[in-house]
Each structure stands twice: as C-alpha cells, then as structure tokens.
C-alpha cells in the first residue's frame, strides 16, 4: 500500500531523512518509532504531499505521490501532530469542509459524519463549537475527520501526544477498531508501549535513517528476550539474555543491585543506538 525507495529529505546541510526504503502492506498497522527529530514527521509530510522529497520515490496504492499527487491523496487520511481544526466552527462544520475538499456530496458527508461521529463517541457534540471540546475530543474529531472519506491509509503523526493515560488508552481502542475495519495505519510515535500494543510491524528511525524493521516481538527477540538492569552508583547498564535462566545466572554474579525483566522496544532502541527513545 505504501512503498518508498531511497526517499531522502535535506534542509540545507541538514539531512532529515536518508534513503528510506519501506513497504507497508495493505491492512497493516505500521508503527514508526523514533525520538523527537528522528525524521518521523518529515516522512509523513512527504508521504502526504505536504513536503517535497529531495530524492527518491514514494507510491501510495500504486500512485506516485509526485507524479499523481491528487490520486494518491484521495487514498489517504491525515491526522497531523498539531490539532488543525477550525476552533470557531462546530464539529459538523469541520467535517463538512473536509468532505467538500474530498469532493463528497452533502448527503454522503452527513451519512459519514453520523457514522464516524458515533464511532468516535462525538455524535452528541458535533453541533457544538470545537473550542468547547476537551483535548481528547478534539483529537477524536481530527481522527473522525480523517476517516470521513473512507481512506485506505490513515497517517497519524504522534496522535496521543498531550493526552492523559486514560485518553491514550481510549484512543488505542479506537485505532484498533479502525484497523480491524481494513484501514492501513501508519502511526508515528515515540511512546514505546504504544508501538508495542498496537503495531503489526515497527520501523525504528534514528537521525533520519531506518535502523530496524520487524514485528515488535521479533525486534525484542533479536535484542534478547530478558534484560538484567545493573545499577552501579548512578549509572544503569542493561544486559540482554535469550531466557530467564541465563539472565538469573548473570544477575547472581553482579556486585551491586540488579533487576531482571522482560525486554521491550525501548531496549531494542537502546541496544541499536545507545540512547533512549524519549531522550
């Protein structure tokens, strides 16, 4: 559904994205993980035609985003990092504008608005101005708006930033349901648990380069399933083991304090880059 080949973006002397080659399959829930400034938003901006690549190609549903941008854009829905709703207008009016931009007829817009309004739990709020909504409601409306024209691919750029824990979990449930209905999701995040909980495959991005691409389970297994964190003074070092027996044997030899736990994607990132994702 999404294919990129050697996609690069440079801003002056800074390389924001370097030779990204990627294939996201139809119906996949794809996670794009990396720290702030890794190039996640740049990738989304290029794939949604908001920015031009410096080199390389990308297709959405077989349409080259540079040669056939309008055809490619018809297939996608975008949930940007910053909520870009018209705060003065009502939820319904925001959906109406979106529908007209996607050349939908008014009755289609109304039908779809009702469907996604119910789906996102906002049906009773659509007649109210958006500036009366909570942060979570604005985020859900942004998602409902992106889905209004039934896109095949939904790009979501850090959609849970700024939400509290319950709002985040609520949104995860919504995203899972959208994916189950057949929509391919391309989700950027720097929340490890989000990528682990939601994604079929995860691409790890660092300094504009894709450094790993696998399912969360395979990535974790490649790093070592069990981790021993050793605390020496103020420093923490992590050691990776294929199973708990090996980890236990090692922990018994440690002089300071040590904890044994299951590995996660954060560990994969640390092992690959020497840094933490949320650093």
């Amino acid at each position: 559904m999404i294919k990129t080949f050697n996609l690069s973006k440079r801003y002056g002397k800074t390389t924001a994205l370097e030779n990204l080659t990627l294939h996201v399959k139809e119906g996949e829930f794809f996670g794009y993980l990396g720290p702030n400034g890794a190039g996640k938003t740049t990738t989304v901006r290029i794939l949604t035609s908001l920015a031009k690549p410096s080199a390389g190609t990308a297709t959405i549903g077989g349409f080259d985003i540079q040669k056939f941008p309008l055809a490619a854009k018809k297939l996608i829905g975008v949930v940007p990092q910053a909520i870009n709703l018209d705060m003065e207008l009502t939820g319904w009016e925001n959906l109406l504008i979106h529908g007209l931009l996607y050349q939908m007829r008014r009755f289609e817009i109304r039908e779809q608005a009702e469907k996604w309004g119910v789906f996102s739990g906002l049906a009773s709020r659509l007649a109210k101005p958006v500036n009366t909504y909570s942060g979570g409601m604005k985020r859900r409306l942004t998602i409902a708006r992106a889905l209004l024209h039934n896109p095949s691919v939904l790009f979501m750029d850090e959609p849970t930033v700024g939400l509290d824990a319950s709002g985040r979990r609520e949104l995860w449930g919504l995203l899972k349901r959208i994916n189950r209905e057949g929509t391919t999701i391309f989700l950027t995040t720097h929340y490890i648990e989000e990528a682990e909980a939601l994604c079929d495959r995860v691409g790890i991005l660092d300094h504009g380069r894709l450094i790993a691409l696998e399912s969360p389970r395979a990535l974790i297994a490649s790093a070592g399933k069990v981790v021993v964190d050793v605390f020496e003074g103020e420093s923490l070092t992590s050691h990776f083991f294929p199973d708990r027996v090996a980890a236990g044997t090692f922990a018994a030899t440690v002089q300071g304090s040590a904890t044994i736990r299951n590995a996660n994607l954060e560990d994969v990132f640390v092992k690959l880059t020497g840094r933490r994702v949320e650093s």
Partner: protein
Amino acid sequence: MRGFTGVFTRELLIIRKRFLKMLISFSVTPLLYLIAFGWGLGQRMTVEGVPYITFLIPGLIAMGSMTRSFAISSEINIARFYWHIFEEFQAAPVSDLAIAVGEVLGGILRGFFATAIICVFALFFHVRLHITGWFLLAVLGNAFTFSSLALITSMLVRSHADQSMLNNFVITPMAFLCGTVFSLKALPGWAHALIRWLPLSPATRAIRATALGHPIPWAAMATVFCFGIVFFTLGVFAIRGAKS
C-alpha cells in the same frame, strides 16, 4: 476544481460566525472618514467638479474593498502558521488552482461586504451612487486583484510580523496615495506618473467613474483585471512553492 467549494465554504462559515464583528469593524474606518472629511470638509469644497463627499465615497469604496480583500492574507497567515488549517487544504486532493479560487472568492466576498456597508452610509450622507453592473464589475476587479495579491504575500511571508510590515509599507501607503481621498491631479507630474501605475489607482478611477455615472474608463477597467489575472496566476504558483 470542485474542491474549491471546501475552501470557499470555510470562508462563508467564518464570515457567518463573525458577521456582527465584521460589520462593526468594517464600518468604523469609512464612518470616521465620512464624518471628518465628508461632513467637516465635504460640504464646502468641490473636487473634480463634484462635492468632496461625493468624490470621497467612491474612493472609500476603493480603499475599503482593497483593504478588506487584502486582509485575507492575515487570515491565511494565521491558518498557516498558528492553526495549521492550511495543511488540511494541502493534504486534500485539491489542486493549487482550486485552493486559490476558494481563497480569492473569500477575499472578494469580504470586499463586497465592505462596499455594501459604504453604499449604505452613502444613503445617510445623501450621496446618490449609480449601482450598476459596471460599478459592480469595477469593485469585483479591485477585490479580485487585492485578494490575489494577498494570496501571493501570504504564501511568501515567513511570519505574521512580516505580514504586518508588508501592510504598513505597501498597503497603507497605497490606500492613501492612489486617488482615494484626493485628486491625483493635485500631485506633481512625476508623482502622478508614478502613482497611476499602482494597482489601486486604476481601480479607484474605474469605481469612481462608474459610481458617479461618468463615462466608463475602459483602460482603467482593463488594467485592473490585468493586474488581477497576473496576481492570481502568481498566487497559484506561490501556493505550489509554499510546500517545503
């Protein structure tokens, strides 16, 4: 091209929400001019063969429709840099031309709104305007030209501060110098020659002549639309160029 309805509908909805605020803010400047220069001076002087207040009102229409049409630049600017609403347009399967048409139509609508307010004031000041198709065409040309110019500037500027600077150094001088509140014939020859090439000068000539029932200045009318077409074309390219 159908996608322009999305952009234009947004403009209509915003205007509907802000109708009262816009009505008041669009009324203040022309009303002050009419009181200060119309009542204060207008009954004792004549300019180009008509009472000053009769000369002034079409000038205020030219000035008002220009400034209100051009004001969409600030709106687009805010939509781009603060609310990121413009990205919703750019991410949609809508051509740059359709975005330009939607935005410029929004600017034209604001220009006509300002014109309507001044026409109502004209009734209170007992000035009879000839509201004909030619007059509306002249106003349309002016609003089209400055909405299109606004589109270009809003795509080129990097911040809201740049936009304000542009207003101060380009739009405000033009509003005063292009024959809106005084006759260009009063200026020295070199200044007259220079100012007549600014886009608002032919627009003012066309609006004043049609509003007062004088012969239609075809050259001025055509010049206004030429400016409009050139600015609009550049505006479409400016939208394309605004992608990083």
